[in-house]
């Protein structure tokens, strides 16, 4: 359903090109939830903005193709793409407070999303929004309320309702629970899981938090410095990670079911994407670095079943 091929998105700055996404390829099937994980600055949000074509002005898609239901979407003009965005591909943003307009009723903001994309009467749209609010566990009458009258969890749920109201084929959620407290986070994750099974949703879930991915995703792609270093089904990636970065990342999260020891850390810091390291980008931090890693960039190789890794060790 979605196929991303060799996408490179760079930011043009005074100091040079920041290679935020630098050659990313993956494919997704209908009904699947793909997690996109990595630390801040690894390019995961830029990738989401590339797919939804919401990049800031100083960003350029240098190369690559993105096929959605067989149509290449990067080459569509803005007018054509607007028909796809929100109707076919919608987004759940991270900061619920900033994503909603504070001086307009929540319901009206969602109605607007429908009226922009579909030729329906306002009454019908209002009714659909009320149903969508109900579906995410918010009282219908909340339609008339303003964002400040919503609690944090309700605002996030309202954004989920807004993303689903046009029955999109693909939803991209960027850190949907990061700003929330654990209990509210559990409420929202439960909602996301219910909707996944109810609506046969396809979803890309972007987060730095592997526990969110463990709970909600079928497959996961690990990004490092603008590239996908490993991709596979969640069980393989968590239980048998291959890439040294994935191994480090998985060990960096303490689990209450694990041993009572300090989370492991990965030495060094993520690279500057103005001048990424040569060869494998992880080589300056890698405990298994070899000579070839410094000069040659590793290709994606299939390890088993659905698991692929880009590392010279394999």
């Amino acid at each position, binding site marked *: 359903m979605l196929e991303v091929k060799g996408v490179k998105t760079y930011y043009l700055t005074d100091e040079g090109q920041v290679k935020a996404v630098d050659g990313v390829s993956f494919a997704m099937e209908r009904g699947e939830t793909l997690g996109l994980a990595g*630390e*801040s600055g690894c390019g995961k949000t830029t990738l989401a903005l590339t797919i939804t074509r919401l990049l800031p002005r100083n960003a350029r898609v240098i190369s690559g193709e993105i096929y959605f239901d067989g149509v290449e979407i990067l080459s569509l003009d803005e007018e054509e793409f607007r028909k796809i965005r929100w109707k076919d591909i919608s987004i759940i943003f991270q900061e619920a407070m900033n994503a909603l307009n504070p001086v307009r009723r929540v319901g009206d903001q969602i109605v607007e999303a429908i009226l922009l994309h579909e030729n329906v009467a306002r009454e019908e749209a209002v009714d659909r929004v009320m149903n969508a609010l109900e579906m995410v566990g918010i009282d219908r009458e909340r339609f008339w309320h303003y964002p400040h009258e919503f*609690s*944090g*969890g309700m605002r996030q749920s309202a954004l989920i309702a807004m993303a689903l109201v046009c029955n999109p084929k693909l939803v991209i959620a960027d850190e949907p629970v990061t700003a929330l*407290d*654990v*209990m*509210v*986070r*559990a*409420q929202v994750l*439960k909602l996301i899981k219910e909707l996944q099974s109810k609506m046969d949703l396809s979803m890309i879930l972007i987060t*730095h*938090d*592997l*526990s*969110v991915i*463990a*709970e909600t995703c079928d497959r996961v792609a690990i990004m490092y410095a603008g590239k996908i270093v490993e991709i596979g089904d*969640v*069980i393989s990636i*968590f*239980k048998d990670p291959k890439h040294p970065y994935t191994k*480090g*990342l*998985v060990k*960096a*999260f*303490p*689990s*209450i*079911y*694990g041993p*009572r*020891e*300090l*989370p*492991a*850390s*990965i*030495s060094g*810091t*993520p690279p500057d994407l103005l001048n990424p390291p040569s060869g494998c980008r992880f080589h300056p931090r890698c405990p298994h670095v070899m000579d070839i890693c410094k000069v040659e960039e590793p290709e994606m190789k299939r390890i088993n079943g659905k698991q692929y890794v880009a590392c010279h060790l394999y």
Partner: protein
Amino acid sequence: MLNNVKLRVEDLRVWFPVRRGLIEFLQRKPQKFVKAVDGISFYIKKGEIFGLVGESGCGKTTTARALMRLIEPMGGKIFFYGEDGPIELTSLNKKQLKKFRTKIQMIFQDPYESLDPKQSVFDALSEPLKVNKLVKNSKELLERILSVLEDVRLYPPESFIDRYPHELSGGQRQRVVIASALVLNPEIILADEPVSMLDVSIRGEVLRILLELKEKRGLTYLFITHDLSLARVICDRIGVMYLGKIVETGSSEEVIKNPKHPYTKALVSVIPVPDPTIKREKIILKGEVPSPMDVPSGCRFHPRCPYFKEGVCNKEEPTLMEISKEHLVACHLWEDI
């Protein structure tokens, strides 16, 4: 009274008055308060790491600020046990407080905000020493700064003293923040979410430094976090806060593996677990934490409690009771649930 106690807090209250409008004032409406911390008691033993855990707004940061007297508490007592016997902090006057302050230092959450971008590392670390007149000459000043930078593993320290915050990575910044708390040789460190703003891959390193320093300098920590899995690993004992109160306290392993308060039970059941093979029953509480301006009657958790008993829980406020050694819980029904 336990031996080896370093800090003891008794019935600490921090209430913030809510501004009344003129009309409310003329109508003689009663003064309302935001009861951020509403009567909490705990102790920290020497060399121990005590964790305050809970969701945002539960009062954990306010507690730390009140211990530093950055906020004046409304009531309660804070005892610090130093070499010359106990000192009661709320009774200190400004001058005494200034002298005392070097003994308790705080590490804040955000390394990007707790350093002045226009100050070099040297300036940031020398300022507290100069203000407190703790060094005699510039040679001693430099020595002390270099040694504290080594303590937080910024090697070689000489290469860091002239750097500015923007020339440091997030992890290095937080280590400078730790160094600036340490440079005054405190006995207690209040660490408020010291790693939550850092990338996961560097958190372990910063935590390791904090533990190392504890051993090396015999420090005592109050560790504030929302992350229970981290609290389990770092803390010896924890106190779980809800809406300005400690509802359960005990050894971190005991509280997390064998929680007794319904709120702790729910909180533990939703701890994020980075393991797709673990399936567990989650207790998802309805709604959100009520406002500390309108604290519910009786047990303040009763409107959200799955075990709520009419006439009991909404009548009387439960107090912390010891149910096994050092494990205390504030719930009327703990034996029946």
